[in-house]
């Protein structure tokens, strides 16, 4: 079965060469595209959040719209792990040529204080902020507390007994919980649930916990099913499409916290390219489809220019840092080998 004759060997050599060339062609053809006009080949968008969660939904709406603007394909690359840690690390190392960008949630403000990552938003070029999902406190539909005040009163009388479902430390949901604790001066019995899509709210509907922190989106289905209701939403003003939910602020608790979604590019990406990206996504966000989506998601639209985004992130840094420190969650670095 082995090749033996030299004639065969020659055939083998040419076949190999030919095959190798044919195989490399797809690579070549992408290379030979116009080198001048950006974007001349598909752009990779890194995300650290799995499909099914809020972030992936935002992406699935906005990406096709932005593709239309850029006239180029955007390939979503999901690098799950560590609440965005892996995707952010990958993005940091990527070439700043505009062909790799990424999306982040508030995780970018959180990781550097928790010690999971040793960099924050300054390591990137944020070029647009897209939307924001405020947190909210939910209780069962038949719970005895009519509003947030009554609930907090109850919690005050029963320190560390009222069970509230939140995510694990490091996620924004958990920090929202701690912020509420700090603003109201109470301590809950915090029950951690993993993952997106609100397992905490599900647990609440089953009556296993007294309350749950979840964004309006995450609890929407169960609220419509009449199983849970929201005592307060953590936004500045009432949500346009859910105006029956009072804000925490108007009830006397200064809790305004949300998970916001920001698009990033690696540091060093040329400003001209950043501008193109910004414009594309801006137009995408102004479209009717995105508008419908945001409204139906009970989400808040957000639009910030690159500069405004950076300022916004700086302010968020301060906010999250405070909550993390007060909650005693700050991890020391140097635990890793």
């Amino acid at each position: 079965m082995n090749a033996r004759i030299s004639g065969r060997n020659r055939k083998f050599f040419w076949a190999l060469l030919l095959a190798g060339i044919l195989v490399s062609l797809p690579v070549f053809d992408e290379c030979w595209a116009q080198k001048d006009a950006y974007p001349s080949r598909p752009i990779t968008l890194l995300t650290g959040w799995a499909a099914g969660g809020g972030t992936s939904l935002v992406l699935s709406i906005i990406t096709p719209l932005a593709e239309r603007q850029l006239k180029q394909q955007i390939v979503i690359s999901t690098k799950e792990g560590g609440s965005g840690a892996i995707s952010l690390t990958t993005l940091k190392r990527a070439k700043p040529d505009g062909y790799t960008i990424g999306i982040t949630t508030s995780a970018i403000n959180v990781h550097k204080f928790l010690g999971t990552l040793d960099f924050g938003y300054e390591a990137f070029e944020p070029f647009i902020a897209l939307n924001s999902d405020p947190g909210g406190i939910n209780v069962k539909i038949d719970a005895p507390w009519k509003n947030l005040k009554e609930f907090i009163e109850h919690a005050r009388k029963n320190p560390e007994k009222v069970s509230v479902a939140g995510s694990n430390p490091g996620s924004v949901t958990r920090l929202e919980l701690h912020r509420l604790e700090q603003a109201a001066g109470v301590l809950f019995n915090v029950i951690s649930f993993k993952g997106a899509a609100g397992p905490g709210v599900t647990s609440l509907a089953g009556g296993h916990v007294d309350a749950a922190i979840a964004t309006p989106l995450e609890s929407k289905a169960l609220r419509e099913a009449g199983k849970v209701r929201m005592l307060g939403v953590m936004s500045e003003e009432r949500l346009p499409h859910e105006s029956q939910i009072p804000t925490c602020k108007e009830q006397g608790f200064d809790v305004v916290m949300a998970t916001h979604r920001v698009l990033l590019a690696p540091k060093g990406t040329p400003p001209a390219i950043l501008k193109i990206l910004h414009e594309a996504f801006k137009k995408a966000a102004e479209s009717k489809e995105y508008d419908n989506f945001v409204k139906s998601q009970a989400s808040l639209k957000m639009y910030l220019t690159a500069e405004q985004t950076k300022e916004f992130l700086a302010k968020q840094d301060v906010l999250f840092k405070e909550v993390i420190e007060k909650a005693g969650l700050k991890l020391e670095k140097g635990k890793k080998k």
Partner: protein
Amino acid sequence: MGKKSFLNKDFVAGILLILFSLWVIAEAQEFRAAAERFRGISPALFPTLLSLCIILLALLMIIRGLRKGYNWDFALDLRKKYFYLTLGLVVATIAYGLTMEFLGFFLVTFLYSLLFIIWMRGAPPFRAAIIAFAATGLIYLVFHKLMLVPFPRGEIFEMLGM
């Protein structure tokens, strides 16, 4: 039963498992320190418990091993040439991972398949090239075009200015 001997799979495995478990317990102490500020069960509890279970089971294995005597036959035989084939497989696989970003997906996949088939004498070289080509193409279609898995394009091409 053969004569009593320490060359027994269970015995050796038991020892290795005990060493491993002790290492796990040592590592676990770090988590305990890291989680001191939280109320609730320490993250070190489960790993420690499990390690203790393994130690217990490992002790049983050691006893069994000592009872049974000699039992040291492995399929692995350094003299057989297949051993080097497998070693080569492992090395090639690691090389595949390491060079993928540099050479690009297509080249490494094609070369890996081709060389492997030729080494195992699965097909004559020309046919092997065709099979390797077809496999690479199939993977490209399913994984890249259908599943949109981004494959590294190969820095070598960028370096060569292409």
